């Protein structure tokens, strides 16, 4: 892996996004709007403070998952992937380049959405604000990593879009937002233990209720980051220079 080629590729991906101002606007605005909507729905009740943080972890995760998987699929379909694989670019340089570019976008998006939730619509959590922002960023990066990995298995945009209900919604159902994970049927609880989104949401729920559990939250973040790195490594390992 070459840092030079990785950064070159990340720069190229970001340049592509920069030429598409509508996508940039959507990336920045949509999670903020959703947080605002959520606060408004639950105005004058304590519900927003309860589920606001977990959903702040979820929205950028979803958006980054979709954006990343579609963009990498386009690389495959446009023939540029085939050209790149005939050039002195390592597979890991390509995947890491995408991870760096979209990781940066994910960070900006999650920071803005988090700041909006905290300071515009007054989300109250027990834990520190900086930790909430860190978790939001890590969750968004997880979305990018999952998108990078799964896009390798999609042959068309139709398939890539359906990976959202297929691979993300089950994680949402089991992540503890609908039913706390320890009250799920045993088999489902075990399944939720190996799903990265469970740890992302666990961290947010801890921040919501517990002011002194920074260590727990950081441990969950460690797990999420491990998942992200493993997904990115798997994404680069499943890329084949020679194809049928």
């Amino acid at each position, binding site marked *: 892996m070459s840092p030079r*080629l990785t950064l*070159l*590729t990340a720069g*190229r991906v970001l*340049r*592509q996004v920069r*030429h*598409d101002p509508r996508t940039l606007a959507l990336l920045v605005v949509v999670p903020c709007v959703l947080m605002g909507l959520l606060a408004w729905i639950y105005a004058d009740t304590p519900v927003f403070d309860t589920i606001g943080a977990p959903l702040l972890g979820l929205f950028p995760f979803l958006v980054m998952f979709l954006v990343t998987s579609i963009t990498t699929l386009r690389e495959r379909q*446009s*023939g*540029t992937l*085939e*050209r*790149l*694989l*005939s*050039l*002195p*670019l390592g597979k890991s340089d390509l995947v890491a380049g995408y991870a760096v570019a979209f990781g940066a976008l994910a960070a900006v998006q999650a920071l803005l959405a988090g700041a909006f939730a905290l300071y515009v619509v007054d989300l109250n959590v027990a834990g520190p604000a900086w930790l909430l922002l860190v978790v939001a960023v890590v969750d968004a990066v997880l979305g990018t990593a999952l998108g990078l990995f799964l896009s390798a298995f999609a042959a068309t945009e139709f398939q890539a879009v359906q990976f959202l209900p297929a691979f993300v919604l089950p994680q949402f159902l089991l992540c503890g937002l609908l039913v706390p994970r320890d009250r799920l049927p045993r088999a489902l609880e075990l399944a939720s233990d190996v799903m990265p989104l469970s740890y992302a949401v666990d961290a947010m729920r801890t921040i919501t209720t517990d002011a002194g559990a920074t260590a727990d939250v950081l441990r969950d973040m460690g797990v999420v980051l491990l998942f992200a790195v493993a997904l990115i490594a798997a994404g680069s390992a499943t890329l*084949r*220079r*020679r*194809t*049928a």
Partner: protein
Amino acid sequence: MDAIVVDRLRVVRGGREVLPGLSLRVPRRAVVGLLGPSGCGKSTLMRSIVGVQRTHGGTVDVLGLPAGTRALRDRVGYVTQSPSVYVDLTVAENLAYFAAVTGVPRGRVHEEVDRVLELVDLTGHRSARVSRLSGGQFSRVSLGAALVGTPELLVLDEPTVGLDPVLRRDLWNLFHRLAEGGATLLVSSHVMDEAVRCDRLLLMHEGRLVADDPLPALLERTGATDAEGAFLRLVEPAGTGVAP
């Protein structure tokens, strides 16, 4: 030493034997035409030469090394059949990215982009987004992306098909200038008229080589008046073709 030596290459795609055991040689510093009808295996052969095709037997040596070797990746330029550059970047941004990936040192990327823009006659369009270009300009950007870094071997998959006559002539002139500069070009086409532009012809039919001659020798051997006639005489044994 020949630029390309293919020995008993066998490739199976989707259960079909596309190349049943193809052997051929491409001499250096020449414009070699790879001609044959659509589906005869030209693209599969080219993919094998640049090292992105999974093969099932035989060998492909390029510039004295096994095809797809890391050391070859900055010495071989490849243009896929449909243009493969980033449509959401400008012409210059595309060329700069591919130049840097190919290994052009950072300080020289700018002049390399200028040089290639000149070669493919797109200097006036350097800041244009590729998505806004005409079809002919689009395919010239794709060609330009393979010319950065002055590769020793250019593998061009139908670079002139569908272009207007003036542009086709200009491109063939460019190919000969590149060959005079020391490059080897393997150019595929399913339009037999392009034979007159090539120093040497490789005629393919159903995954097999049916001729390997300069055009005059081919015409003399088959008694035909043009490449199309020669091809038909070679693939249709006497008596089976429709009478003239």
